[in-house]
Structures are given as structure tokens and as C-alpha cells.
């Protein structure tokens, strides 16, 4: 217990509280001014909405992937399984460069998409694409163990009682997987808000349009506006933390019922 508190303090709490202390000397007025500037607000909106889109998409595709990995045997399964973790390991900048190359108007996917008037690069869509990639393993890796735990017998019991496959999924499996799905997609969401490396390569970083919140912080730092940067960071921190808190509360409430 003592060690845990110490490490938690040293690694997490102390550095994060510096943001807090850096911001305090600013005073209330300049703080509000800094964090409610239209450009900053636009960046928050962009960060949160793209992260949300990506998280929802990841939830669906991640569930399917986890399903396939748990339930089916096929050649190359190990390979696919390893592939899932790649976004964890790859430097995000590398991912960003890859995306920028593929989706640019001369890249081999961008070329086709531009014909249908779909612009990936320099648009929020591009940010979503990058965030989907980054958040994907979170969903798969949280669902996989829960799905493995569901005995075949449970599904067989439902079938014998006359349930179709869809009914079995909707009424039995999905409620079972839901907490894990929620955790996974929230992690993906949280990661999406904080993601920097891959996004800046693809977003184009146009003020008010494709400028994400972490980039906002970077550009403030570039202008030696340290207090402004920590003010923006503080808001980001508070929102992220309260979301994770909320998630924990939801899970607690879910578990309480049947355990």
C-alpha cells in the first residue's frame, strides 16, 4: 500500500499537479481568457468529437475482431493477433507518416477517394482515421479475455431454449460484454484526446478547422506562453479525468447488481 502510494505519487500525481501549480499564478481572468479563446474552444471541440467518433467505430470493429480472434481457428490467426498490438508499439509519428502518404491526393488510397470528393488529409476525417488506428487495440484487448470466459454452454443453452443467434448475442452475450466494451472504448477515447504524433501529420493543423487540443498546447509552448499552455492542459486533464471517473462509477454500478 505504502509503495503503491509512493510510486503513484512519483509517477503520476506529482508531474500532473505541476500543471496545476503552473496555472495558479495566472489568476482567474487570464485563465478564462486563455481557455475560452475561440481557437482553443474549436480545438477542444475537434479533439473530443473526433475521439468520440473514433471510439465508437473502434467499439464496433474491435468487438468483431475480438470475436473472430476468440471464436474462429484459421491460418494466420497468431499473426493477426500480433498485428492488433501494433498501434501500441509503433511510434505514433510513423503511423502519421504512413497515413499522410497513403491518403494524400497522390497516395494510392487518396487518389481514389478524391474522385468521390472524400478528403482525408487536412480534414477532421483524417484525424478520425488516425485515432481509430491508435485506439483499436484498447477495445480488442479488453474484450478478448471477457469473451474467452463465456462458456460455449451458455450459448448452447440459449439455442436449446429457442433463441436465434442474434437473440443469443443481443440478450446474453452483449450484456455480458458491455462493461468491457465500455472500458475499451473509453480507453480508446481517452487515448484519442491525448494523441498527438500521428494526428499532426495528417490533420494539416489549420487553425479553427483541424487543430487539435494537444497541438494547441504545443503551439503555445512554441510561443513561450507557458502559462497559457498549462491552462489549456489543465482543462484537458480535468475533462479526461472526470470521464474516467464517470466510467468507473458506471462500472461499479453495473457490477453491484448481480454480484
Amino acid at each position, binding site marked *: 500500500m505504502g509503495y503503491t502510494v509512493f510510486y503513484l505519487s512519483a509517477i503520476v500525481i506529482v508531474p500532473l499537479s505541476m500543471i496545476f501549480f503552473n496555472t495558479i499564478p495566472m489568476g482567474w481572468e487570464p485563465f478564462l481568457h486563455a481557455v475560452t479563446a475561440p481557437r482553443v474552444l474549436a480545438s477542444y471541440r475537434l479533439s473530443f468529437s473526433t475521439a468520440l467518433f473514433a471510439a465508437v467505430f473502434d467499439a464496433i470493429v474491435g468487438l468483431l475482431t475480438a470475436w473472430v480472434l476468440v471464436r474462429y481457428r484459421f491460418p494466420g490467426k497468431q499473426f493477426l493477433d500480433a498485428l492488433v498490438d501494433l498501434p501500441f508499439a509503433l511510434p505514433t509519428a510513423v503511423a502519421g507518416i504512413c497515413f499522410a502518404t497513403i491518403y494524400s491526393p497522390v497516395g494510392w488510397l487518396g487518389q481514389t477517394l478524391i474522385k468521390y470528393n472524400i478528403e482525408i488529409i487536412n480534414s477532421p476525417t483524417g484525424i478520425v482515421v488516425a485515432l481509430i488506428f491508435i485506439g483499436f487495440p484498447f477495445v480488442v484487448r479488453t474484450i478478448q479475455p471477457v469473451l474467452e470466459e463465456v*462458456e460455449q*454452454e*451458455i450459448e*448452447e*443453452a*440459449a*439455442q*436449446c*431454449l*429457442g*433463441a*436465434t443467434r442474434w*437473440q443469443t448475442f443481443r*440478450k*446474453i452475450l452483449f*450484456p*455480458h460484454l458491455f462493461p468491457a466494451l465500455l472500458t475499451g472504448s473509453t480507453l480508446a477515447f481517452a487515448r484519442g484526446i491525448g494523441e498527438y504524433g500521428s494526428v499532426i501529420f495528417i490533420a494539416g493543423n489549420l487553425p479553427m478547422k483541424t487543430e487539435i487540443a494537444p497541438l494547441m498546447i504545443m503551439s503555445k509552448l512554441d510561443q513561450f506562453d507557458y502559462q497559457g499552455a498549462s491552462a489549456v492542459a489543465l482543462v484537458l486533464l480535468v475533462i479526461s479525468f472526470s470521464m474516467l471517473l464517470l466510467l468507473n462509477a458506471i462500472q461499479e454500478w453495473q457490477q453491484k*447488481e*448481480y*454480484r
Partner: protein
Amino acid sequence: MGIELQNITKKFTGYTALDNISLNVASGELVALLGPSGCGKTTLLRIIAGLELPDSGKIILDSKDTTNLPPRKKNVGFVFQHYALFRRLTVFENVAFGLKVLPFRERPSRSAIQDRVEHLLKLVQMDWAIKRYPSQLSGGQRQRVALARALAVNPKVLLLDEPFSALDAKVRQELRRWLRKLHDEIHVTSIFVTHDQEEALELADRIVVINKGRIEQQGTPQEVYDHPANAFVYNFLGNVNVFHGRIKNGKVSLGTHHVDAPDELKYTEEKPSQAFVRPHEIGISRIRSNQADLAGTIREVRLMGGQIGLNLECEGFEHAIDAEIPRDLYLNLQLAKGEKVFVSLNRVRVFTGDYEI
């Protein structure tokens, strides 16, 4: 609502799980599939339920061929060894599940579902737990809920896969008697799988003994126990002493001891044979009352409740003999470890042929 199985064969890679099995179960019957683990009995049950497909053969349920129907169209109730209750649903929702997934037109009204679930839970004596979750129940209670859930859809046949084997001995026995009573009330055609001969003998109307994917014998518990068709059945239905010997001129040799061979085995030529004696069919006395009695020494005494188990070393016998005698006799004779007694083999069964146990 009888079941007719015709020539069911099922092969898995490397071995044959079921080898040409044919079986009829009459409407309202309670049949036990009895056999050692890996004999194919569970596979047979799963094939009837449609959870596995046979390689060949037919399953006629209620005079309709249901061989290739998926489980949800078969209308069978299946009770699993480990209950397989839906953990996220309450007891009520578990039992109501089969009714709630019915197509809209066949689905009973909410109040009808409520009534049916309450009725079923009363039947299995679990009505007090209607709002609980499975994790709040003991194993025996869960299995009862599972039974109510299986009965909710009015199944044509109830299939139980080792329903009591995950429970402890006392609960197992209680539930066994209770299930028999329940069956006498509702008369749903039932097949249960077990490897516990006591369970099969106590519970079933008819026992089907299965070994290595084949039916060895079927009949009422009495018939199967008293007239086992072969050495396997005899051995599987209870504890036995086995004597490997030879049969010749109407006599069977057991060690240096001889007994008369049964009429159908009065060969003149010599054949290998096996003689079986159940421990409770062995008599123990202090005085030699019969020329055929064996002289023996008690090597071990085991308390087994109402019975006392004795491990005896007898003259002319290679292996020790297990006997069971009533506690009263044990006390009367004032037996103890190391004492000399006379042993009579009251009932010997002889089978020929080499049979591996």
C-alpha cells in the same frame, strides 16, 4: 412424445464416439445413459439435442425426423452439468428466457409469462429466489433453476447431462430423489447421462449401459443389476471382486478353489474365465459351516456407516478379497484386524473371455 434413435454413428478425428446406436425411449419414460467417461453418452445426448450432428443415422422425435434440425427448432430441454445459467439475468429472467425469445405471434402475454415462471419456480421449490442472480445461489439451487428454465418451453423431451455431478454428495442424493418425484408428477420424457451407477439405479425407469460407443445392455435397474449381460456391465454396476481363472468340465477355478459353472458355460474344453463376487455377497463366520468355505485372515477393517468393509487374505488366492458385512454381524462376531475367519462366496458370476477392466 417418444424418441427413436436409428443407427446413430459419430466419428471424431481418431476415434468412434458412437458406433451404430439404436434406441427407443417411450413417452414419459425416464432413461439413464450409464457409462464410464468418454464412452460417448454425452455425445449421444448432444446429438439428440441437435448440438452435434451424427455422421449417419436418424433421430425421430415425436414421430418426426429431426435429425438435421438446429437445436432451437427441436424443442428439447437441455440441462447442463455446470448449469449454464445466464449470469447477467435474474432467476425470473433466466426461466422466462425461452418464452421471451419466441416469435411475436407465439409469445405469451407478459402476465402469462409471469404466471408460468412463478408456477415453474414453485415446482422446483425456488419461488423464493425469483429476483436473485445465479451467483447468489448454491449449486443445487442453480441446477433447479436450470431445470425450471428447460421446462419453461414445454419441451418434448428433457435431456440432462450429468446434472448432479458438480454437486456434493448430500445435495446430489437429495436432488436425485426430488427429481424422481418431479418426474412422477410431470411425466416429461427424460434422458439423463451419468457415470454414477447408484444414480442410474435409483432414478431411472430404464438403464442403458454404454461402453466405447456401443450399447452393452438395456433394461430396468432390477434386470440390469441382477442379470448383467456381460462382465463389463457387472463390473460397472458396483464394487466387485474379480477372480481370473479357467473354466473346465463344468467347474470354474478360483485360485485353488472351485465352483460349479453356470449351465450355459459348461464347456468340456478349457477356457479362460472371470468370476465376479460382490462384496456384500460374501459371508463371514467364525466356524466352518461348509466344506467350500475359505480360510482367511482379516487384514483391514473399514467403517463405512451401516456396513463394515473387510479386506481379507484367503488361502490359495493371489489377491485380497473385499467383503462388506452389516455392522451388527461385525459386532456379534467381535472381529478385529488379524483374526482368522471363514469366508463363503455366496453368489459367484462367471463370464468367459478376456475382458480388460
